[in-house]
């Protein structure tokens, strides 16, 4: 039970960590100061949530484990974030498409997780949903601005929306830990809001004058720890200090 709970939490927390890390790459390089600051805010929220989850896992694990052991000391196969969040920033359209696809999911997930029978998770979700609803507003607004902005921006965001679409379905693939914890009343059944997810995504894309992708072939693997080629580089940076100087305090 404990191991499954840990695995379940990792399945949520690793997404926040890796997306927070990706957004952190952009700090100081945004298209203007306001957007730069807003993207950093989102990164800060996600990393704050990550810490809450990992601290909880550390408590559950015992053995003096810390949030940093969990964040930095695992092998690539032990990170179980979805492929979507590890996709590169490429151009601003890709940043927004990735964010939007994740935010819609994240919002629905937090909404449901608030009712978890696990008090710690419910509390994290209650706090998180305020942050995530801001993220969703930010990314939806940009989808509309870019979609219904100039010809160039329309083409660029459509390209990003199409390319990242293939990573959306993995969000709804249930793991073994999911199944077990749904039965316990702890976990959220993501299938319950799959339809709402695609409805919301389509509604915003249409409002943004964009075409909803109809690609039926999807990518998966992250939840099993089988990542894209990008992941190794993300971890090389993320783990650089901890792996170069093990067992030190910073």
């Amino acid at each position: 039970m404990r191991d499954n709970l840990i695995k379940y939490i990792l399945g949520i927390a690793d997404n926040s960590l890796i997306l927070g890390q990706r957004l952190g790459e952009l700090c100081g390089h945004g298209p203007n100061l306001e957007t730069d600051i807003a993207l950093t805010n989102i990164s800060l929220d996600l990393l704050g949530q990550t810490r809450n989850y990992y601290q909880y896992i550390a408590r559950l694990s015992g053995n003096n484990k810390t949030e940093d052991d969990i964040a930095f000391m695992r092998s690539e196969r032990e990170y179980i974030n979805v492929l979507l969040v590890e996709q590169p920033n490429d151009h601003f359209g890709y940043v927004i498409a990735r964010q939007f696809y994740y935010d819609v999911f994240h919002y629905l997930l937090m909404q449901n997780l608030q009712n978890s029978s696990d008090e710690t998770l419910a509390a994290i979700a209650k706090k998180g949903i305020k942050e995530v609803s801001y993220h969703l507003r930010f990314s939806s607004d940009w989808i509309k601005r870019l979609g219904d902005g100039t010809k160039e921006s329309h083409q660029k965001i459509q390209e990003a929306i199409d390319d990242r679409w293939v990573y959306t379905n993995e969000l709804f693939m249930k793991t073994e830990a999911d199944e077990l914890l749904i039965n316990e009343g702890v976990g959220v059944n993501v299938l319950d809001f799959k339809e709402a997810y695609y409805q919301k995504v389509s509604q915003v894309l249409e409002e943004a004058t964009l075409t909803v992708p109809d690609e039926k072939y999807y990518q998966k693997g992250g939840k099993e720890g089988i990542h894209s080629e990008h992941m190794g580089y993300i971890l090389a940076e993320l783990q650089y200090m901890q792996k170069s100087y093990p067992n030190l305090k910073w």
Partner: protein
Amino acid sequence: MSNKEIKNLEEIFNQRIARDEKIEPKDWMPEKYRKTHIRQISQHAHSEIVGMLPEGNWITRAPSLRRKVALLAKVQDEGGHGLYLYSAAETLGISREEMYEQLHTGKAKYSSIFNYPAVTWADMGAIGWLVDGAAIINQVALTTTSFGPYARAMVRICKEESFHQRQGFEILLSLCKGSEEQKAMAQDSLNRWWWPSLMMFGPKDEESPNTEQSMKWKLKRKSNDELRQQFVNQTVPQAKILGISIPDPDLKWNEEKQSYDFGKIDWDEFWQVVKGHGPCNKERMTARVGAWNQGTWVRDAAVAYAEKQANKNLNKAV
């Protein structure tokens, strides 16, 4: 306006400043006052946003989650400082685009310290401790400067800078309390950042133009050398607490002056970096110009979208 009338206005203007009244954007001001303030405030703003780059370089590699979050928040604060300062400069009749243009073409300067590379994690400590520390000394004086928007921006910014300084000191303190390797990393960082930090106060007084005028406008309250001395006096005891040594064999306490004597600054290096030939001048500009150019289509889209929305609302109203 006749020359005599202008003289009169200037007289009143100077008296207001002498009485410690604030000059606000809508008030009459001499052209030179306006120009000098645009130059200084925009350069200050540029320093904030170029200053995001050396520290931004370590966000993805911070050694713990706590440090990562604190560093992100710090770099974000600097962006916020840039934002207040650009807004303060805009009240004097220059647009943000013009200011960026001046930065990108090299017409406007920014603090030279950011042309040094941040190569180890300890540099995140040294930058906070020394660079934010030096910035505070420069900026506290400006909280009572004559131009209202600048003075108010400084009050807000100084509060955050002192938080940054403590955070930087605390990063180094952790290293100094850590392993030999960590302590060596802290010492190496101090070795590299000490002299450039002293250079942050600008050329020595004999070579610093405009000082008299700036003093009158309260853009400067103390000379470069006085501020530099204040920084040294304040910082040396902090280095002792850390247990790392200042890389200056000539540094010693002067009982008579009640202050530290210190060695000669390498002014050739100072001018080399100011003139654009420091270790990272090119990288910093490439990063700024690159971000701006890559963002053009995004900013254009935002403008086009806002116009379309405004038209829609207008049509609805009709």
